[in-house]
Structures are given as structure tokens and as C-alpha cells.
């Protein structure tokens, strides 16, 4: 597709007057902010796993695609609305995450980074092609009454599906924070994240804690996937795009920071949304990735870097 960039002289649209349309700008802000909830949900699981184990989960997007398919199966075969069924997807992904960590990731936690990358990419490939065999190549989208619902505030509309996703993203971030700061298991996770060797010395079961962290991270991905399934079309190959977007958000927010993932999601989404108003919409991803470059130059650890889980 690179040829498109070379051959395509797309006429930059935006006739005079349109770019200053206040309704359009307000709409872009609202849509961007609410869609930011979707992005935040996507990134939270990734940041949690990295924060505790220092493993970059390249299979993140593909796990999410499986969660989307679970939501789709639930909705089409069993009539379960994904806004209720996300708990089931989270539970199933929790188990899957636990098994993946214990059987595979645990073997390479202390191995060089390239070994970790190879394993996680391998898992991603298996998940992607498994989905292709299981569900076929057609793009899917879960349709629920909520996905078509909108509330109009004068000329600006609020997408109810996105609003629900946004609220769940806030709730999930708060719940995870409470878990990490108020529960024993959470404190142990933070201890492992802070200093694995030290945690082992004071008696923490690092293997169990790591598996739990991976499982909780995967459960977040499960919840995110099920909640995003009505908003985003998906097919087996969607995983890579989801992974790249999540990495962008997590790096902007600060690798390993929950708050960073949440704020990063909102920032990236609003930036893209406004980019689509003020620039050629083709270039909206340029805005979010430019944000990444600026953050890396100005604050290499990310906005909330250092405040890991």
C-alpha cells in the first residue's frame, strides 16, 4: 500500500468556512473523548502486563480479537449482549492468560528480549491463524440496540455505545487501582514490579504473582475486546492494528502506568479526532504518532512514566 502514498495526490479537502464550524469541532471533541475510553480500555491490559513482568505482549491485539469473537459468538449464537457478556469474555481470557503465562511466557521471563519478542509474536501468529480457521476471513461487527443509539444535545450527538464503554473504562481503571493498592495480591504484584528479586527474598511467590498479573491483564483485554466489538469491525488480521495503537498509547502514557494508559487513550483519540477536522483525515494517524515522537523527545519515560503499577 506504500505505493498509495507515492502515486496519490489526494486533494486536501476542507473548503473555507468548514474548518471553523464550531459544531463540527465540538462534535469531534465529544466523539474523540468518548472513543478515548475505547483506546484506554485497549491499553490498560498491555500496560499491566509490562508493568509487572517487563514482558512486551505482542499478542495483545490478537488476544483482543479473540475476545471480540467471543462477544460475537455470545451475541449471535446465545443472544448475550456484549455490554453484559464482557464479564464472561474477561473470565475466559483470565483463564487463557493464566495458562499462556504458566505454560509459555514463564519459560522466557528471564531470557533475552529477542526471545520474548519471538515467543509473543509466535503466540500472536497462532492466535491470528486460529481465528481465521475458526471464524473465517469476513470482517464482523456485533450489532446491539445500543450501538445505534444516540442522544442529541442540540446539533451535537453523543454515541450511547461509546458513552457506556467510556464509563466502563473509568470504572475498570479505578477497580484495578483499588486492586493494586488495597488488596494483598495487588501489593504483591507491585512488589514484584518494583523489585522481583526483593519480592522473592521476602517470601512472595513470584511465579504465581506473575501468572496472576498476566491473567488479570488478559482479563482486561477480554473486557475491552467484548466492549469494543460493537464499535469496531474486526477480522482475524485486526490484531496487529490493535497492538500498534495500544503500544502508541502505552508509550505516550508511560510504560507500566495505569493512569498513563487511561490518559494516553484519551489524548490519542482526541488528537486523531481533531486531526480529522483540521487536516486531511488521511493524516489523522500522523497526528497521534507525531504526539508519540514529541513525547519520546520531551519526556522519554512517557507522561506518567516512573509511576508503574
Amino acid at each position, binding site marked *: 500500500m506504500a505505493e498509495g502514498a507515492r502515486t*496519490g495526490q489526494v486533494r486536501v479537502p476542507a473548503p473555507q468556512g468548514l474548518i471553523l464550524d464550531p459544531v463540527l469541532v465540538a462534535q469531534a471533541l465529544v*466523539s474523540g473523548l468518548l472513543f478515548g475510553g475505547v483506546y484506554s480500555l485497549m491499553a490498560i491490559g498491555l500496560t499491566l502486563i509490562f508493568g509487572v513482568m517487563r514482558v512486551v505482549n505482542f499478542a495483545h491485539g490478537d488476544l483482543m480479537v479473540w475476545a471480540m469473537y467471543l462477544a460475537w459468538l455470545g451475541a449471535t449464537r446465545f443472544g448475550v449482549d456484549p455490554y453484559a457478556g464482557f464479564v464472561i469474555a474477561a473470565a475466559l481470557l483470565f483463564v487463557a492468560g493464566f495458562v499462556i503465562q504458566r505454560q509459555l511466557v514463564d519459560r522466557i521471563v528471564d531470557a533475552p528480549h529477542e526471545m520474548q519478542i519471538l515467543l509473543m509474536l509466535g503466540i500472536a501468529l497462532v492466535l491470528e491463524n486460529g481465528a481465521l480457521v475458526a471464524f473465517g476471513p469476513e470482517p464482523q461487527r456485533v450489532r446491539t440496540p445500543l450501538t445505534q443509539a444516540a442522544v442529541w444535545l442540540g446539533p451535537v450527538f453523543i454515541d450511547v455505545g461509546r458513552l457506556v464503554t467510556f464509563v466502563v473504562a473509568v470504572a475498570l481503571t479505578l477497580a484495578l487501582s483499588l486492586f493494586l493498592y488495597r488488596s494483598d495480591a495487588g501489593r504483591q504484584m507491585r512488589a514484584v514490579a518494583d523489585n522481583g528479586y526483593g519480592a522473592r527474598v521476602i517470601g512472595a511467590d513470584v511465579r504465581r504473582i506473575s501468572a496472576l498479573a498476566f491473567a488479570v491483564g488478559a482479563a482486561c483485554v477480554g473486557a475491552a475486546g467484548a466492549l469494543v466489538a460493537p464499535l469496531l469491525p474486526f477480522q482475524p488480521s485486526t490484531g496487529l492494528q490493535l497492538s500498534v495503537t495500544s503500544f502508541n498509547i502505552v508509550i505516550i502514557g508511560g510504560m507500566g502506568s495505569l493512569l498513563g494508559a487511561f490518559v494516553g487513550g484519551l489524548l490519542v483519540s482526541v488528537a*486523531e479526532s481533531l486531526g480529522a477536522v483540521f487536516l486531511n*483525515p488521511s493524516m489523522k494517524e500522523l497526528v497521534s504518532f507525531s504526539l508519540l515522537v514529541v513525547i519520546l523527545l520531551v519526556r522519554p519515560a512517557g507522561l506518567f512514566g516512573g509511576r508503574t503499577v
Partner: protein
Amino acid sequence: MQRRTFLKSTVAGAAVAGFPLPLRAQPKTIKIAAIHCATGPLAEPGQACRLAAQIAADHVNAAGGIKSMGGAKLDLLIGDTQTKADVARAEAERLINAGAQMLMGTFNSGDTAAIVPVAQQRRVPFLVDISAADPITANVARAVKEGQQKVQYVYRNFPTGTLFGQRAVQYFTEIFKEAGVSPKRVVLMHCNDLFGTNQSKGFQAAHKAANPSWEIVEVIPWPEPPSDLSTEVSRAKAAKPDIIAPITRPASALLLLPELRKQRVESMGIVGPGSPGLYEAGQLTVLKDDLEHVMTSIPWPNFKHPRAQKLAEEYLRRSGGKMLDTNSGYSYDGIHVIADVLERAKSTEPDALVDALKKTSYKDTLMVSSGPVMFNEIGDNPNASPAMVQILKQKPVAVWPKEHALAKFVFPRPKA
């Protein structure tokens, strides 16, 4: 029978039976690489192309193979681009190394463009069954014309983006006139990959040349595949469109059409200048009413051709319930064009194949067209032509031009 005669004939018979290869002419096989995007974002249409190519090869072989070459059978070597240009190139190399004597593919313009240099370098004729981007053939034709390359090995049996644009502008204007309405403001929304950008340019250029009574008031591209199109749709709405003209891919159509409904974008209709995403079985299953009365100008099987009906039934059976459409139809025709070329070339020598390709006049095409399959000086088939297809009662039906229409179009789109 004398004892000596009996012995002679028995020995001779036994020799023939025992050593059949040197004495009996065995039909050869001719290896054809069918490379499509069978996985990745465009897997659905890619798999449709692959299956149709296989059905076509089965039909050619069942009818006696390539008769001028002793009944040689077509042996399809299957390649998968994964919808990635670098993989497409590697697959072409791999299959040529495995003995492919002709290439066919790929559906995705970006992948097809990546195979072109391989075909030229390795001197293996490449019939593009589906891919609309103009530069695929035009760049090679120019290189040959300017003497940088000696022979053109790349030919295309599919409308180019330019031709898509011309037909779309023509059909838009004719349909508006026939319906007795005069929409003024058309908003063009398109994916920004090689295909989408090329289609958009073709449509705009044709509009400029034809200067019809309607205007393209806004052009809104998006990165493909998009994660969100709400702001793009808000922008389209702000342009007060009479017509939304989308150039989509399957995934982006799943986002765009529900968003148009959700944001209550009022228009006379959604009429596409030509793209996937608006007519496939899988899309209809997911989008349902959002696709009803949507029109798009795409290459389409000529269901008035008796063989097209029969093929549609076989395709439905072998695909597990899918409809013969643009993609399966053109890949099916592609293999038949290759068989026709081999029949006339009587050889698999590359330059003999190119000579035969240039002299092609294949009349038995199953697709809507304005004449036989042939290749002009650029290597394109000027007779490949789209038809305006509309979703009526959840089925895609050709509605324009009149000679290929199976139903009367419904326009303007009735309000939901």
C-alpha cells in the same frame, strides 16, 4: 495366427504396457500460479478469487485441457499474499521457482503492483485478474515504450481506476436523469490505500472531464483500515450532501454505513463509484438494512449469460453458500483467458505467450462487458466494464445500464 506372429505381437504389446512413458504421449501439465490475498484484511475476496480460479481450472481440465498442447492439464499453484506487498513479491518468486509458467492475481492493487517487477524480471507472463490501480500496467507500458524494458509481461482483464471513474460519472448522470431528480452536492469518501486513492482520482478526473450538473463538494479520505469514522461522517454531514459516494473496503464499510445512519446524514442516496464492501454476502449479513438500496458501480457477472447462471449454482455449492460476484467472476474468467492464450500460443515459451496475449479476443466472458476480452497498448482490457448494482431486498442486483439490468433501480433511496 502363426506362432512367430503371435510372439511378435505379444512381445510388442507387453513392451507397450510395460514401458508406457516413451511410447505413449502423456498429456503435460502447465503450472499456473494463482496468487491472491487469502489471509489478512482482504481475505474474504481473496479466498473467493482462489476458489473461482480452482473451479475454472477444473472446468478447463474436464473439457480436455489445452488441446493444442496434447490435452495438457492446468495445474494451479496456490499463493497467498497475506494482503502484504512484500509477501506478494516473495510468493511470486517462490511459485516461479516451483515452475509456474504464468501468474494470475491478486485482488489487492498494492500486492499486484509488488508482483509486477518480479514478472518483468523473470519473464513470466502475469495476467491481473483483479486490481484497478492504473499504474500496475501503465508503468510497465511506459518503460517498454521508452526502451527501458523490451517486452511487457503484465496484462490486466479488469477495469482500471480511470475506466471505473468514467463509467461511474456516466451512470450517476444517467440514473439521476432517468429518476427525474437533480442532486447537486456529492460528497466523495474513500479509503486512502493504493486502490482507494486511485479510484478517487479516477472519479474526480472523469467528473472534471464530463462536467455534469452535479458537483463533488467535499473529498474525505480515511486511513485504511480505520478504527473510527465518526469525525469523517460529521464532516460529510456538514457538507450538506445530496449523494454520499463511498469507496470502501469490507472493514471500513462496516464502520461507515452504521455511522451515516447514527448521525442521521440525510441524502438522496448512497451511490459508490466502485469498491468492495457494499455487496458481498458477509457484508450483507452484518450490515442488513444499512445496505438496502445502496448502489455501487462494480464489475458484475452477466447473469443473462446461461453459463453464468450454471456457474453461480456450482459456486454457491462449492463455497458453502456464497454468491458469484465481482471477485469470483473475474478470477474464473481469468483462468479461461489464460487457457485461451495457451491454446493459441501452443507453447509455454514466455514471448510466444505474450504474442498470444496481445492477439487475445476472448468472446465467452461471463462478466458484464462492452466487447470481447482484449488488451490495448497499455495491456488493459478496454472492454472490461462495471455495472451499477443495487442492494434490493438484501440481494445485489444489476440495475444499470439497461441492457444488463435485471431489475429497475430504486432512487432516491426511500426514507427508513
